[in-house]
């Protein structure tokens, strides 16, 4: 013992028997964690069928969903505007949606759709923040415009929480056929639901009108003049997320409208989008650009706008409170655009971007008043001209749609993409980020602008035996916003399918970084290798 007490003790310590299960347990624990992480990661992933535009779209959507800062910035980026309209209803509690006084005011003033203010069943008090970025390209049809008010109003009056609850089937396009004989079933469609929280979002769907939604939370419901699925087939999403970073989760409603449009992002453009709404309203009034924010607010029952601005609003809540919802919108616009407004106003609609035009169109439809003027305004850039009839718009709209976003040029290691102005649209080339699997080489190659992008990546031979290539998944790994712009990082993985139809994933080492610079509107896509 004297020999060495600690030596002896140490021996005993080392003799502690290691159970056989240890190895298994460790492996299982690690595997379980990996699965969990992969699942979380894969949830945010898209198949890379799309273009760079698709990448961005995806990210933006996520971004809007995930951070207040992001959402706010997103409002400033026209491209984003086309993509998602995020409506954040704050302070949701287990059984109520809290909406604050302001919002109810908004509501009252908002009745664009119907001439009467739609007085929603008050959801107890609280605050509600709505943010939206949206450029709906709505086929504004004068006829419908007239019909809308009555239809939606009637619908609102008629639909109660119980009635809404009966609708269980999520809308799919094929329902149009299936229920062709029962229009009643199509009148209210279920757009999204969160069954575990008993929350659902419904849309008014009659005569092709895609404006007017009802949000049901348990046994209460509230109506919003939100547009949904205009120009896109994507159903809205609802989820819970802490969108504004205040530590509390909000109910986030993402409404997809329009599709990415071609546009040069310049400072002006960045500021312009918010104006759109304002302009639209103005147009109807005096057709003149110099609209003071307040003026706009009063005149136009801003449907989308009101909602959209809420994000900025949050900050200016006090101010906003004084003005109507519209004014809020205006405010936001102002904040961003400020001085530029007048100029734009002078040109009138001409300067309005396609998006704006589209928005205007929407508004018209929604508001129903001054539709003619609006229509005139809504001259799509491509169509340009006040004479464009409303009916033509819908056809025009597709031209500006998705995929045509970027002109990408190669500068050394960097791929620079500029978003083209609508006027240049015709001559524009579509550049996509593509992934191709070369079977003989067993490698994945990316192409940007039809040029090989980065080195091709070989996949492990033996592991992919008997598997069929399916796609490359692209997963946003992180996104962040600085004053300069928006940065997005992606990871990628190749997807194969085995004989049983199960998917097998091979992570790729290539990592993409996309960077949208707010300063000059450029988009840079880079391959950042893992260091």
């Amino acid at each position, binding site marked *: 013992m004297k020999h060495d007490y*600690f030596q002896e*003790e140490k021996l005993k310590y080392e*003799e*502690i028997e*290691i*159970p056989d299960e240890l190895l298994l347990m460790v492996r299982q624990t*690690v595997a379980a*964690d990996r699965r969990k992480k992969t699942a979380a990661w894969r949830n945010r992933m898209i198949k890379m069928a799309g273009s760079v535009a698709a990448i961005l779209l995806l990210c933006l959507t996520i971004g809007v969903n995930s951070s207040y800062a992001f959402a706010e910035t997103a409002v400033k980026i026209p491209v984003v505007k086309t993509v998602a309209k995020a409506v954040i209803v704050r302070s949701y509690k287990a059984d109520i949606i809290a909406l604050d006084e302001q919002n109810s005011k908004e509501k009252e003033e908002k009745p664009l759709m119907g001439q009467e203010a739609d007085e929603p069943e008050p959801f107890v008090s609280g605050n509600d923040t709505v943010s939206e970025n949206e450029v709906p390209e709505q086929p504004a049809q004068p006829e419908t415009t007239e019909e809308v008010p009555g239809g939606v109003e009637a619908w609102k009056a008629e639909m109660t929480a119980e009635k809404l609850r009966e609708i269980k089937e999520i809308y799919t396009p094929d329902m149009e056929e299936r229920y062709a004989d029962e229009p009643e079933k199509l009148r209210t469609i279920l757009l999204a639901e969160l069954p575990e929280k008993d929350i659902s979002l419904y849309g008014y769907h009659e005569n092709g009108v895609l404006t007017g939604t009802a949000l049901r939370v348990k046994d209460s419901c509230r109506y919003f003049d939100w547009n949904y699925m205009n120009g896109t087939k994507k159903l809205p999403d609802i989820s819970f997320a802490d969108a504004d970073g205040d530590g509390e989760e909000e109910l986030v409603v993402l409404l997809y409208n329009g599709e990415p449009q071609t546009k040069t992002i310049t400072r002006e453009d960045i500021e312009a989008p918010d104006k759109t709404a304002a302009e639209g309203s103005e147009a109807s009034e005096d057709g003149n650009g110099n609209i003071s924010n307040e003026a706009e607010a009063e005149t136009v029952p801003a449907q989308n706008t009101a909602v959209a601005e809420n994000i900025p609003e949050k900050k200016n809540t006090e101010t906003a409170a004084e003005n109507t919802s519209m004014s809020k919108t205006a405010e936001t616009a102002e904040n961003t655009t400020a001085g530029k407004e007048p100029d734009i106003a002078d040109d009138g609609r001409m300067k309005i971007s396609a998006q704006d035009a589209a928005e205007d169109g929407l508004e018209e439809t929604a508001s129903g008043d001054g539709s003619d003027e609006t229509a005139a305004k809504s001259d799509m850039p491509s169509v340009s001209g006040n004479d464009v009839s409303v009916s033509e718009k819908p056809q025009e709209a597709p031209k500006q749609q998705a995929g045509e976003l970027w002109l990408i040029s190669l500068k050394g290691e960097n791929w620079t993409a500029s978003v083209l102005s609508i006027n240049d649209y015709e001559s524009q080339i579509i550049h996509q980020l593509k992934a191709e699997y070369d079977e003989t080489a067993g490698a994945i190659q990316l192409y940007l602008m039809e040029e090989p992008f980065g080195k091709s990546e070989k996949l492990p031979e033996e592991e992919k035996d008997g598997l069929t290539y399916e796609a490359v998944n692209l997963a946003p790994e992180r996104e962040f916003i600085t004053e300069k712009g928006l940065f997005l990082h992606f990871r990628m993985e190749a997807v194969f399918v085995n004989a049983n139809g199960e998917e097998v994933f091979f992570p790729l080492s290539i990592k993409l970084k996309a960077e949208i610079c707010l300063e000059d509107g450029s988009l840079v896509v880079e391959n950042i290798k893992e260091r």
Partner: protein
Amino acid sequence: MSKKALYDSLVKHIVENQNQFYRAAFYYVKNREAALDVVQNAICKALENYEKLQSEEAMASWFYRIVINESLMYLRKEKKYIAWDESDNDLLEGSYEEPAYEPKIEVVSKISELPTDMQIVIQLHFFEEKTLKEIAEITDTNLNTVKSRLYAACKKLGKELEKEDEELLTRYGKSLKKAERESRNEA
């Protein structure tokens, strides 16, 4: 180092050194099943929070700390459980005697009578042969605290073992010198 690489190297570290972690856990909780639980919880926590890990160098100490903390947490809970059980002796008797779970070896009987923080220092220093600096990292204390704990532990043990007193102190002296040399070298 990317997050993924960090995660992978953490997994590697855990798998490679699992026996060491198990021994440490067993040393504290003195029960096979409990030690397995402790290690499992530690792994889960580490993998969940690996992003908090600053660098790969800090990994070993960081994970060791988690294992020790988990063990202590287990002991605390256990203590509560026993205290609660004492009021209900009938329950205790049936369920508690499971000889298979008794530690076969009486690990460091005298040492286990020491306060926990001293036990940890002894275990790490003499059994795991960690340097005092490493111990400081693992226990998240500063070097001087480790030294004084080690000294106090040796003294206490020395008193109990009387005869070894002298030798323990000598050993302790050696450890201190070694630690100083190390820190000088690093500087």
